[in-house]
């Protein structure tokens, strides 16, 4: 007898849950957001509370300028010519 009552209560509880889920789904679909079509901000009139951390004047941190090191042609010997002289002798 008691098992039967428990079963009935369980069924009723499940039905209740299902009904709740269905109603929640229906209400979610119905949500619509509306925004203001026009809103005006007077920035000059805005008051922000706090303290200024950044320095007031414009500053650029100095750094050393990159020097491009392109070694230009420099002759240190004439080995190529020495070899060539021998090769064109015989």
């Amino acid at each position, binding site marked *: 007898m008691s098992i039967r009552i428990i079963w009935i209560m369980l069924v009723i509880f499940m039905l209740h849950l299902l009904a709740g889920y269905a109603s929640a789904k229906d209400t979610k679909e119905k949500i619509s957001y509306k925004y203001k079509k026009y809103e005006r901000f007077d920035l000059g009139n805005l008051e922000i509370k706090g303290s200024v951390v950044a320095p007031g004047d414009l500053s650029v941190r100095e750094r050393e*300028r990159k*020097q491009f090191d392109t*070694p*230009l*042609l420099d002759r240190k010997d004439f080995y190529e*010519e020495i070899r060539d002289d*021998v*090769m*064109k*002798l015989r």
Partner: protein
Amino acid sequence: MKILFLIFTILLLYITVIPSSGANLSKAHRIYRISNSMKKNEKITYELLMAKYYFAAIPFAVKHLENKGKVTENFEKALRLIVLKTGTESFMNIKSKTLRDAKSNTLNFVLGLKYFERKNYKASAYFLGLIPEEHRFGPEARMMGGSSLSMAKKFDAAATQYKRCYNVANSAETKAKNNKVARYYAIIKESCLIHAARLKFTNRKFKESIDAYEEVAKKSYMWPYILLEKAWSNYHMEDYNRTLGLLVTYKYPLLKSYFLPEAEVLTALAYLKLCLWDDALEVVKQYYSIYKPRSERLKAILLKYKSSNTYFLELTKKNIRDSEKQNPFIRNLVTQVRKTIKYNLDFSSFKLAKNEIKRLNKAGKSSFTKMLVSKVQNIIKQRKKSLNWFIKKRMFDFINKIHRNSYEMFKIKIEIMSQKRSLLYKNTKLVSDRGRGSFENVNRKSDQHFWEFKGSFWADELGEYSFGLKSNCAEIKRGRKQ
């Protein structure tokens, strides 16, 4: 009476000279057929050499060496004669061990050259050092030995070799029996002077190197090449006006064939050092607009024939005007190649070989002569291929130099841009108040005199020019009036 004397002389010549060469050839044939002696190849070599068949004698001399035959005094003379008449290439393909074991001065010379080609400079210097000074190849051995030691960075030993080379070549030049031989030794002598100057340059003794270069006579065929080297010495001594003066000599019409791409780069560098940026950029511009496209066209022509075994050799035989029409650089390169000793020696040996074939064909149609003709023909074919490769390599090396120096020019352009930007950052500019030249800016020695250049080159002035440009490197603040 005169006619009778003439007929008698001709008959005498016929009896003595002509049958003797024929007799030597038939004797060589007989030895070839009958003899099984160890000395067979040696004997055939002697007989062929006596009949003046130098190319035909090569295979027999090589066989004698490969069979580990002894190098007697007579065979040494035979080897020397073969090398003199046909070149060192005749024995280049023999194994190094065989050449070493022969213990011959002539073969040591071949060995030295072989090692030099393979960049084994230590071994090259050793074998060339074994050749006595009084030997026929003594002067060349000293020059090549000095070069090997230079390449091996043994500078003191190299300098000693060059000094000895100069003395030996000088004495050989004075003793020479004809002009051609005297000229040959003169070239070796000049090469040794130039190499000694290069040695000083490598050791950064620029002043001494300039003095050494000045010992080379202006009539020397090597003189145009040393202008660039002298210019480098002056550049390192920061005499940029003299550098520019030396390089402007290449504009002399008779030196047109000596277009050296590096001379253009050095000109731009000298202008850069004087802070004459516009002048430097003009040289760069000219290089890109004239020389580079010309080299591209040359490359297109040469690439078509890169696999040919004869094209480049044939090019040197063409009329110089036809070569110029094809491409101005071809004319220059052909002129330079034609002046090398190797080209001239190889060319005269081809003539000698052709003459030998003619004489062999006339001598008879025996299997022996046919074999000799075929061997000589093969040797000529190989030699032509080798000379063709030598010319081809020089031409492609030239194209590569143009491209390599084109990159150097690009770097100069970048450097000028970088320096211009630096001035901008510093809010300065170059002084730019120099005139185009002044005597005050010319460094000169006590024996150098002033002559103004008025648009024409005088032979005695060549190589003595100097610009008189003032350095433009001083900086002034922008906005200030000059």
